[in-house]
């Protein structure tokens, strides 16, 4: 009995090693043909990119990065979190470049000397999603502020990110002085979670929610929600690239950050970004800013 057990254990161990081996082989195999066409691998080949969940979870970075990596020989390590954490990671010296969407925080990041220059390069619109029958009558509102007023007046449920992410900050800006008090207004649900979790919660509660369009479209099939307001002047969502300042933080891959930013702002990336989403959702998810 013991022998059988030992044999099974040995087999499991051998199999798991084999599986791990296969896993590590895979990227090498796909990377190999790319390297033949690429420039020589740079000395410091790893670029640490700290970014928000919306650009990573929407699939934009996984779509762009293989082309960049093949062209330059760099390897981009993406850390995605809410904008607040994405910026903090860079302040702590754990990133070479950031890609975020919260103008005020970005400007503060630069004013404090952590960032070199804010380079806004693309935008999309936040959308308001809600129950399919739109009980608060949000549809047709002039802008998000008007829509929020209707939600507030009808005390319809509203799920807020509540996590100081770029989306949460945009939401607070739209509320302005009329921001609800989560402690007193029980229709206002401050979830303190990521976009996906909040959308799932809004769907469960049949609540309204402010979301980036990309995340909503990528989850649409699982949600019992519709877009009730798609465009408004106060719903523009601008993304920027900022290289971390080597004079403030040591041990950075400044050459890598520069190469990444140059490529992202160049024609090849622009062409790719402009058509991202068309194949999957029928609409482009991001629009480039005029240079």
């Amino acid at each position, binding site marked *: 009995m013991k022998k059988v057990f030992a044999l099974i254990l040995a087999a499991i161990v051998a199999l798991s090693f084999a599986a791990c081996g296969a896993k590590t082989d895979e990227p090498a195999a796909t990377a190999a043909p790319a390297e033949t066409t690429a420039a020589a691998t740079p000395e410091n080949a790893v670029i640490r990119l700290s970014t928000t969940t919306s650009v990573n979870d929407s699939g934009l970075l996984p779509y762009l990065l293989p082309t960049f990596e093949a062209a330059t020989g760099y390897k981009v390590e993406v850390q995605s979190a809410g904008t607040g954490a994405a910026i903090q990671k860079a302040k702590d010296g754990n990133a070479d470049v950031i890609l975020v969407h919260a103008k005020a925080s970005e400007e503060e990041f630069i004013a404090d000397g952590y960032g070199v220059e804010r380079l806004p390069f693309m935008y999309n619109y936040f959308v308001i999603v809600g129950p399919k029958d739109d009980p608060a009558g949000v549809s047709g509102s002039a802008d998000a502020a008007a829509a929020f007023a209707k939600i507030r007046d009808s005390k319809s449920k509203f799920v807020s990110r509540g996590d100081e992410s770029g989306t949460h900050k945009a939401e607070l800006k739209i509320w302005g002085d009329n921001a609800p008090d989560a402690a007193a207004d029980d229709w206002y649900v401050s979830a*303190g979670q990521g976009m996906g979790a909040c959308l799932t919660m809004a769907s469960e509660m049949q609540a309204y929610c402010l979301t980036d369009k990309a995340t909503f479209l990528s989850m649409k099939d699982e949600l019992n929600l519709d877009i009730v307001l798609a465009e408004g002047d106060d719903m523009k969502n601008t993304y920027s690239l900022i290289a971390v300042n080597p004079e403030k933080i040591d041990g950075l891959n400044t050459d890598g950050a520069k190469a990444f930013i140059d490529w992202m702002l160049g024609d090849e990336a622009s062409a790719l970004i402009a058509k991202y989403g068309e194949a999957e959702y029928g609409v482009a998810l991001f629009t480039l800013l005029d240079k």
Partner: protein
Amino acid sequence: MESFQQAFDLLISLDKELLQIIGVTLRMSFFSTTISCLLGLPLGALIGTRSFRGKSFLKKLIHTLMGLPPVVAGLFVYVLFTHYGPFGSLNLLFTVKVMVIAQVILITPIVIGLSSSFIEGTSKPVIDTARGLGLSKAKTVGLCLSEGRSSLLSVVLSAFGRSIAEVGAVSIVGGNIQWKTRVMTTAIMLETNKGKFSFALALGIILLLIGFAVNALASFIVKEPADD
């Protein structure tokens, strides 16, 4: 260091929201621990004192469930209580009650597994004595529980520790809603996601202090011998 200062300041200031979060945390952990122990201790005692067909299989099953990942338990309960799920009409999703349900699923196997092992180890002589005294089966089980008191206290405290430290299940079924289902661990996750690492650490220190206080209180109640 900054975190210790912040933890201290937070406790001193008796921040209304922090107190509310601590309240929810204690309420949830109390009910999770109590229900898990009410279910788990008698079962653990039965398994520990009896021998029956399939016992070794049952023990393996329980030991597997002791390692049940919290996210899996959370997911399982979520699917049951989602709006269109079998218990969706109860409207329990995103409440403290459903967090307790998820934790009971998570913790009961731990209570059964640990208590049956402890009782198995200490029960033999007790059972022999009980048989000698001609006690009933129920009384024998009771005697086993009282003889292994301090071992069982550590079972209960392990259950409590699992409950208070757990984040995966409660964030899925509770939703980390401010003023409602936010507990210490999900608050720490949130502050970490905000990038407020030192504040998050301060909350972690407070959580440890709460855990310590509960442990001290429990051993005081059970009158564990001092280690001299």
